[in-house]
Structure formats: C-alpha cells, structure tokens
C-alpha cells in the first residue's frame, strides 16, 4: 500500500512541472490583467470603460472550460489566430478568466481606500497619477492581498482543466495511471489530491500572511 502510494507519487510527478509552470505563468498574467482591467474600468474614457466591462462580464459569466475549448478548438478555425502551443492556450485562458475576476478585487480595493486620502493628496497638489501611485495603490494593495491569495489557490486548482486539451499535467498522469491500474484508481486520485494540496500549502500560508498585512496600516 505504502509502496504503491509512493510509486504513484513518483509517476504523477512527471506532470508536476507542467502544472507548476502553467500555474506560475497564468497567475502572473492574471495579476497583470487584473490591474490593467481594474484600472481601465475606473478611467474617465467611456470607450475604455465599456470595452473593459464587456471583457470582465463575458469572462466572469462563462465557464473556464468552455473558454479553454474556444481558444483551443474554435478561435484557430474562426479567426485563424493561433496562440502557439497548447501550453500557451492553457495559460492564456486561465489568465483571462481569473484576470477578469481579480480585476474586480483591484477595482473595489481602490474604491475602499478612504476618500479623505484622495482629498489630502489633492490638497498637497499631487497629480492624479502620483495620487494613485504613492497614496491610493499602496493602501489598496494591502486590501487586495487576501483575495489575491484566495484566487491564486483557485488558479492552481483551475490548471487541472488543461489536461482536457492534451497537456500532460498531474491530473493527466493520474488518469493514465488509473486506466492502466484500474484497481488502484481510488488510491491514484487520492495521491492526485494530496499532490495538489501540497503545492497549495505555501499559497495558503501566503494568503494567511496577506490577511495579517491587510489588517494593519490602512485608513478606512
């Protein structure tokens, strides 16, 4: 029993790098998307605001797996756009999806910073960009940390979907293992769970830490 568990873990670890690399890249890009979309949605320009709102609502309102299939199967045929390898398709779909969710975290955190902070910054004659950069964003960032931690864990779990477009991640190897060792199916999937959980542990720790930071040092 213990031997075969270890055996399975070794087998699954072939997919470890795919899962981790997709997670790290998709997380990075979704943070970037979150800031671009979150800030765009607060701009005065109605066109930028409208386009951003459309993106956010479409990607929040449809499921990640359908988006993944769209990017993988439909977009290349319909628009002749090829996003490179399926690794990139996975990264882009996840980043766009979670970027849409997290942009709302960015936006609401910025709005949650006390209005008095903006007023003091105006009274000191900081420009709108300086106000955002030196006064509002540093405080909003602290408010964002716990939610960003939560979403990061979700992104990690979301990467499991890329096995459906032929990427060889942890879940993919779990499926393969089960199909060749049918009796060990339950154990194989237990090991898959454990493996995801172990990768998530540092993220859980980080988001706890983020919560602590968020609790202090912000005017509200």
């Amino acid at each position: 029993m213990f031997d075969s568990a270890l055996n399975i873990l070794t087998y699954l670890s072939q997919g470890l790098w795919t899962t981790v690399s997709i997670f790290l890249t998709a997380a990075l890009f979704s943070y970037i998307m979150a800031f671009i979309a979150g800030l765009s949605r607060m701009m005065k320009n109605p066109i930028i605001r409208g386009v951003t709102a459309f993106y956010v609502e479409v990607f929040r309102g449809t499921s990640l797996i359908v988006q993944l299939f769209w990017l993988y199967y439909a977009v290349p045929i319909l628009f002749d756009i090829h996003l490179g390898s399926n690794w990139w398709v996975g990264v882009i779909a996840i980043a766009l999806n979670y970027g849409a969710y997290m942009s709302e975290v960015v936006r609401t955190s910025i709005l949650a910073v006390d209005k008095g902070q903006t007023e003091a910054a105006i009274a000191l004659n900081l420009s709108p960009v300086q106000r955002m950069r030196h006064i509002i964003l540093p405080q909003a960032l602290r408010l964002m940390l716990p939610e960003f931690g939560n979403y990061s864990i979700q992104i990690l779990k979301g990467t499991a979907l890329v096995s459906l477009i032929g990427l060889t991640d942890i879940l993919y190897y779990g499926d393969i293992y089960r199909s060749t060792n049918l009796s060990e199916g339950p154990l194989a999937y237990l090991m898959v769970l454990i493996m995801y959980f172990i990768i998530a542990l540092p993220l859980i720790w980080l988001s706890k830490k983020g919560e602590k930071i968020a609790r202090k040092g912000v005017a509200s």
Partner: protein
Amino acid sequence: MEPIVQYKDIHKSFGDTHVLKGINLDIRPSEKIAIIGPSGSGKTTIIRLLMTLEEPTDGDIIVDGTNLWKMEAGGDGKMKKANEKHLSKVRNEIGMVFQHFNLFPHKTILDNCVTPLVQVRKMSKKDAVELSRQMLDRVGLNDKYEAYPSHLSGGQKQRVAMARALVMKPKIMLFDEVTSALDPELVGEVLEVIRDLADNEDMAMVLVTHEMDFALEVADRVLFLDGGVIAESGTADEVINTSDNPRLQDFLRRFRDA
C-alpha cells in the same frame, strides 16, 4: 491691498440642496478669517471649493488674479471648465488641514511631509527631509519622525497634518474644523499651533471652527454664515457686540450656555 482670493456670487448645490446661495468674499493676503455658523450652513463647503475638492454650481473664484474653475478656451476669450493642469497651478498656493487629519497611514510621519515635497515641489530628498524635520520640530513632534500615524494621539496626528501642509508653503491655509474630532484634552495643543501660525506667519488663514472663543481671539475678521449666505462680517468685537442680527445672537447665546 489687492485680495488674494475673491468669491464672486458663488452658488453650490448638492442634488436638490442649495447649500451656498451667493457668496461674495474677499480674502486679503495674510488676513486671518474665522467662519462660524450653525452646522449645515455651508461653512466647510466654502473652503472645499477653494481647495478644488468641490466644484461650484455657479459663480467665480479668483485666486491671485487667476480664475480657479475656469480657463480660456482659445484665442476668443471664451471660458471653459478648467482642466487638471490649470487647477494644479492654482492649487499650489493653497493648503488645507482636515477634520479627520487624513494622514497617509502607510508612510511614517516624516514621509508624510517628504513625499509631497519630492513629488510636487521636486525638492531633493535631502532638502525635503531637512525642511520636514524643521516643521515637525516646530509643531512639537521632534521625537516621532519615524513613527506611523496609527501610533500617534489625535492631537499629534493633527499637528503632523499641519506640518505636512506647512512645508508646502501655501499662501492661503484652510482649516476645516480641525479640532472637532479630537478628545477635549487634546484640543489645546492643536489650537496652540494655530495661534503660533496666526501670530508669526504671513499667509492668509481661513478657519472653519466651533471653537468660538478661539476664533474670536485670533481672527482679524469673523464671518457668520447662515442659510447659505454671509449674514454678518466684521471684527470679532463688531460681530459679537454690535450686531443686532437675531440669528447670530441666538447662535452665540447657545455657545455661551453650552
């Protein structure tokens, strides 16, 4: 002497509420003005308009010869709404201290002062630190440079807020009920700083306050705001002793009783 600020028939509405109904006011350089009046009379709104935190519904505010909220649109002399660049130029001459301090909680009190000097005044970090320390010393916070605002008492926070406004060397300084949020025993230390400024600084000062005795003592001129207009204006002595405005007498009586 030419006034440094002129309000010309200023109106301000918030939705259906007509708060200011035709304010005409000249502020001369280095003049100390106190605005008193019942709550809801628009005292705070008057100075927020000057700080560009609110936009007037109608009328003009002239600061040092420049129309604050309007600028020339082109060669034809027509005026349009001022843009950020125009506002920023005029804003340079004005400073404000708020009821709730509005210190930047993520910065030390030294950095609260240094940041605007470096960012707005383009001062070197070294000079900015030097000037900020001097100003913090002046308001009695020489041992707190590296403290964060959350570690200060209300009185200390308000003194930092004053130092932060002062380092920018405004020609006009606005005080918006700066002692209203303080515990009673901390009011004195803040008023002490304002008195020092009133006695020793050349800048014009406008105080919106409920500290009646203090206002009457330091102000060159007292304005009584009532129903969205300046109902009385004069020296403290004139306003208190010679005015027969029944609303003002009533207002003052209520303060003496309290």
